[in-house]
């Protein structure tokens, strides 16, 4: 390979008129193009297959009852994931209210008060935190709140804490990128009008970055909705609608889906496909809308 590129070119002849060696090079180029294109197609196939199969198997299951009724024993048909949907909504509402304010505040600290040693440390560990296994987050919240210092038992709140821990680094990292995109002229204009730093941040920087912040938050929500493993140790799962804030095991769609998929009866598996369709649709809508808002925001600059 390297001998080929280091061969000195003697005269200026167009590639198409070179001796056979060059046609071999062009053949390799063509071959590489074909192989890379095939790799690209291969990489798209799983997504297409998943979307197709989840839609095909799920579409017949999802109806109004699916959202309003709780699940019968797995052998029986009918019923739905009302408990899961309620639980997911409850847990997500709590998790969002915990993770998004803290995440954006952290990003504000990193961008507006940095860079210094503290902000770069936080930034680094936020990055690292995105790679922490979700199951470990579950164990951590179990150790900390369920049996540990809190001793709170399973429930909605501890589940939400686990999901919030999963979402926090995603919110922070994306919010940080978005705040960096706000031009310094806007900040300086604010200072020029006599505004204090907090006023500049709250009234100028955050509104200017709002679409981007929305994008990051929505991506984090999309991630949080589908989390299963951390909830196994914290919310624990429930087949009934649980309105308690803390103390009783709470259900969620992914947990219920997992249970349904892992048992042998056809009716339960069908409902799992239905739940998968709902979950997938939700996640896709959040992701696509988030990207759309984000691309609008970045082209507006």
């Amino acid at each position, binding site marked *: *390979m390297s001998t080929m*590129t280091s061969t000195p*070119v003697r005269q200026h002849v167009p590639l198409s008129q070179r001796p056979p060696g060059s046609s071999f*090079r*062009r053949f390799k*180029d063509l071959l*590489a*193009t074909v*192989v*890379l294109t095939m*790799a*690209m197609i*291969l*990489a*798209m196939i*799983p*997504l297409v297959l*998943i979307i197709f*199969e989840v839609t095909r198997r799920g579409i017949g299951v999802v109806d109004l009852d699916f959202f309003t009724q709780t699940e019968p024993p797995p052998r029986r048909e009918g019923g739905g994931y009302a408990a899961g949907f309620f639980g997911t909504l409850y847990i997500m509402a709590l998790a969002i209210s915990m993770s998004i304010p803290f995440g954006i*505040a*952290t990003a*504000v600290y990193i961008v507006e*008060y940095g860079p210094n040693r*503290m902000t770069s*440390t*936080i930034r680094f*560990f*936020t*990055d*690292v935190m995105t*790679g922490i*296994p979700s*199951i*470990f*987050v579950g*164990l*951590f919240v179990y*150790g*900390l709140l369920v049996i*540990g210092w809190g001793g709170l038992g399973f429930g909605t709140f501890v589940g939400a804490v686990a999901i919030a821990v999963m979402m*926090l*680094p995603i919110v*922070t990292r994306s919010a940080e*990128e978005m705040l960096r995109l706000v031009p310094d002229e806007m900040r300086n204009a604010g200072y020029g009008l006599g505004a*204090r730093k*907090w*006023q500049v941040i709250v009234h100028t920087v955050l509104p200017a970055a709002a679409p981007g912040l929305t994008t990051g938050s929505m991506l984090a929500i999309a991630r949080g909705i*589908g*989390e*299963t*493993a951390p909830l196994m140790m914290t919310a624990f799962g429930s087949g009934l609608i649980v309105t308690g804030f803390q103390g009783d095991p709470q259900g969620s769609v*992914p947990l219920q*889906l*997992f249970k349904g*998929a892992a048992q042998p009866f056809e009716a339960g598996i069908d409902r*799992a496909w239905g739940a*998968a369709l709902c*979950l*997938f649709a939700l*996640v896709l809508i959040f992701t696509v809308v988030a990207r759309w808002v984000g691309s609008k925001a970045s082209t507006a600059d």
Partner: protein
Amino acid sequence: MSTQAPEAPAPEEPRRGSLTSAKGRMADPIFKWAVTACGTIVLVILALMVIRTTSEAWPVFAKEGFFGFLTGQEWRSGDSRTEITGTYGAWPFIYGTLVTSAIAIVMALPLAIMVAFYITHLAPRRLAKPLSYTVELLAAVPSVIFGLWGLHWFLPNVLRPFFEVLENLLGWFFLFEGPIRGVGYMAAGIVLAIMILPIMTAIIREVIAVHPIEQRMAAYALGSTRWEVMRNIVLPAGFSGIVAAAMLGLGRALGETIAVLMLIGGSQSWSTSLFGTGSSMASHIAATFGEATPEARTGLMAIGVALFLVTMIINILARVIVRRLGRMTGDAAV
């Protein structure tokens, strides 16, 4: 700005935040203090993670010894409330984690490199962005859906026939020995490969996208073909980024739980055949946590700590490499 307010003579309200009022002077430090406190939450959470889980798992490490715990072959949990009575050897699960992750990396890394190169160098300019979005959309699919799809569609329709062919051809080799149960290391590894493809593609794509265009143009000017530019100019320059991407992908693969749990088979032993069933560290925790006794949960916590250590080391190394390559954008999403 509101000093002109005609019917608001109360000086406090309109002048809040002005340079002279005491309240206004305090606002900035308070705000700074508040966001700093929020910022340190990340560090507090990480510290709590290490302290809480390690102290929770300590009795198991104390009884088995750290390396005894990692290499022990037998996992038999006791049900005592006060002491550790069972035997805790995590090797079968560590083996399962290593094997499934290795399969995933071996399959996903070349594909990720090729896809990244296609998107940055070959795709029509208009298609490049939609294509990379589509691949990254795969990262948004919840793990449990991968599990459901893998178990009830991909495994019976694609993987099982593929395994049978593989076993017929290479059954004499210990890695591909039968019997084929369907679920097993191989099935979990292949689905893992699909799951870690997006993050690896995203990072490799960004690494090779920042490659200076002058170098490529110089190579084209010397008469290089596109393949030669990719192979001899961009690939060597992006090598460390590819290493980082592989490590981040590995970190994800090691910690992935639900999809692996549904596809690995869930036995507590280990076998050398890739078609054999087993458990990974994460899947074993998730599978047995619900019905576990308090003592067994201590043991599971110990597995969690070991898993955390490994993924942390890998992640920190990968992030250090990525940091060296310059500021990355967008990888927070995947």
